[in-house]
């Protein structure tokens, strides 16, 4: 119950964040989309023992979050939501890989290193995806997908699904609230009403879809979802993507912390 209210709140929050007007929000949606994808590929391409090499890539989410003036807490909260599966699989590594390695005189099991690497990758990839939607918004992302020649039917359907999620979540939460009030001391939905509870909702949804379609036809829907068009890609957008890509590639080829570290220790010793 609280779960579903939280989810409605989450979607609204990301929608609000996407409506801000900052430098990052003004970047062309397609450019942001592609940059995020390059970033994800670079992060994921690191080997399973890599930790230090991944650290410079942290600057991407940090910089976007600050430049786009996004709040830290909700983003962090969502990273934790994504964690269980990754941590669940990753935690098996220390159990199955005991071989010890020495780092700065400390003996560490290799399994923990791979676990740490997976966790770090999870933080980087999850934050990148969330920041993409929090700085772009669903409609603009839809227009970016159209520019990538993703079929109209799919994009239209994606945007409609998105549009109706909050409507239907509210409906579900009302049904659940009514059910909870009539069945005290029960955690979930009892099996005797599984079919009727969800089934009623489904039938109602089916009818809603018919009304939605008729309403759309009355307003001149011909199969095209008009996103209002989008200005072309400017020099600024190209610079944004090129700048980040160069940085990602450098961070991938050279271990930047290692270079900085040897510079420091080299000076001291």
């Amino acid at each position: 119950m609280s779960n579903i209210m939280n989810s409605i709140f989450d979607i609204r929050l990301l929608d609000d964040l996407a409506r801000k007007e900052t430098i990052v929000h003004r970047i062309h949606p397609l450019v942001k989309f592609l940059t995020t994808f390059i970033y994800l590929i670079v992060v994921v391409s690191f080997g399973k023992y890599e930790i230090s090499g991944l650290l410079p890539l942290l600057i991407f989410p940090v910089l976007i979050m600050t430049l786009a003036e996004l709040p830290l807490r909700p983003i962090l909260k969502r990273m934790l939501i994504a964690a269980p599966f990754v941590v669940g699989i990753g935690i098996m590594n220390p159990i199955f890989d005991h071989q010890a390695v020495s780092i700065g005189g400390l003996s560490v099991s290799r399994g923990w290193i791979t676990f740490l690497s997976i966790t770090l990758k999870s933080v980087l990839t999850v934050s990148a995806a969330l920041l993409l939607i929090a700085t772009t918004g669903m409609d603009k992302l839809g227009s970016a997908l159209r520019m990538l020649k993703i079929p109209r039917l799919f994009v239209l359907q994606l945007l409609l699904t998105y549009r109706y999620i909050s409507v239907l979540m509210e409906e579900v939460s009302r049904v659940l609230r009514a059910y909870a009030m009539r069945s005290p001391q029960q955690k979930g939905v009892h099996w005797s009403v599984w079919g009727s509870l969800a089934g009623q909702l489904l039938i109602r949804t089916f009818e809603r879809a018919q009304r939605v379609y008729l309403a759309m036809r009355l307003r001149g829907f011909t199969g095209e979802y008009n996103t209002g068009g989008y200005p072309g890609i400017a020099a600024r957008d190209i610079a944004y993507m090129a700048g980040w890509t160069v940085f990602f590639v450098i961070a991938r080829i050279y271990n930047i912390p290692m270079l900085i570290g040897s510079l420091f220790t080299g000076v001291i010793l």
Partner: protein
Amino acid sequence: MHMADALISPAVGGAMWAATTGIAAYSIKKLPKEMDENKIPLMGVMGAFVFAAQMINFTIPGTGSSGHLGGGLLLAILLGPYAGFLTMASILTIQALFFADGGLLALGSNIFNLGFFTCFVTYPLIYKPIVAKGYSRTRIFAASFIAAIIGLQLGAFAVVLETLFSGKTELPFNTFVALMQPIHLAIGIVEGLVIAAVVSFVWKERPEIIEKATLGKAIGSTSIRRVVTVLALAAILFGGVFSWFASSSPDGLEWSMFRTAGVEELESPDGIHRVLAAIQNKTSFLPDYGFKAPETESAVTAGEGEEGEASWPAVNSGTSVSGLVGAGFTLALTAVIGLTISSLKKKKSNISA
């Protein structure tokens, strides 16, 4: 059950994206043109329904266990496999973007795992043949129950394969399978019961919703041969990815190539060492790599997948120390940049306000 980006390698992610894109393109082509427009709002609203209904907690009294509504099979039953698959794809896309439930690179695999097996395997091969003999409460119940369980089992098995091919986990295949399949059998049974209850309820109240979808034009053309062809293609893709991995470099690909040179240099005895060092000088990216070249490179090599394994003992404490110092410095720098920008922004907004 959603794959995360952190657990997938670019090659596996890319292969699964390719497979999913192919199936999606095929599905779009198969959706009858004249139904298109009419069906889009239905797909959108039903997708939103599944999304919302997945948050309902269905409990089994006395056992303490509970389950959720599985989307793929239900959508296939209501909309047909093509529209069902596409709708499932958009649900998973929105989950990945807004709830960080499954990553963007892993999205291809997630759509495949949760959409393909239900819409294109268990729906046409299990659900349809059973209800084809004529609708009855028992048949509908059995058909959706069995199809849901098997669909989830196949999906869970695909998660195991994708994770192992990505080489991020140390879990042995047997252990992983022994973990995943029973868990998803338990989940699948509850899921199957929920779907069966919902579908039979809707059939009782509004039989045309269930019957029209199955007999309708959209699905009439799914032949078993088609399904087998798609499955074979998927198998080839999987096989291709697998052999790629078995052959040599696990991830870094060309990067790991030139770093292998560094490994050999460190591990070989003196005589060969010099020869190899000469070769390495020619082959490595930056021959006169400035800062304490050998150590730096060895540590970098150690960071690489399979090749790195051999070189682990070669990491000396000196490199590790500079690694730790550098890592700390990088983190501090990142924090300073972030804090400076946000404090500058605050100042600016204070002035303007």
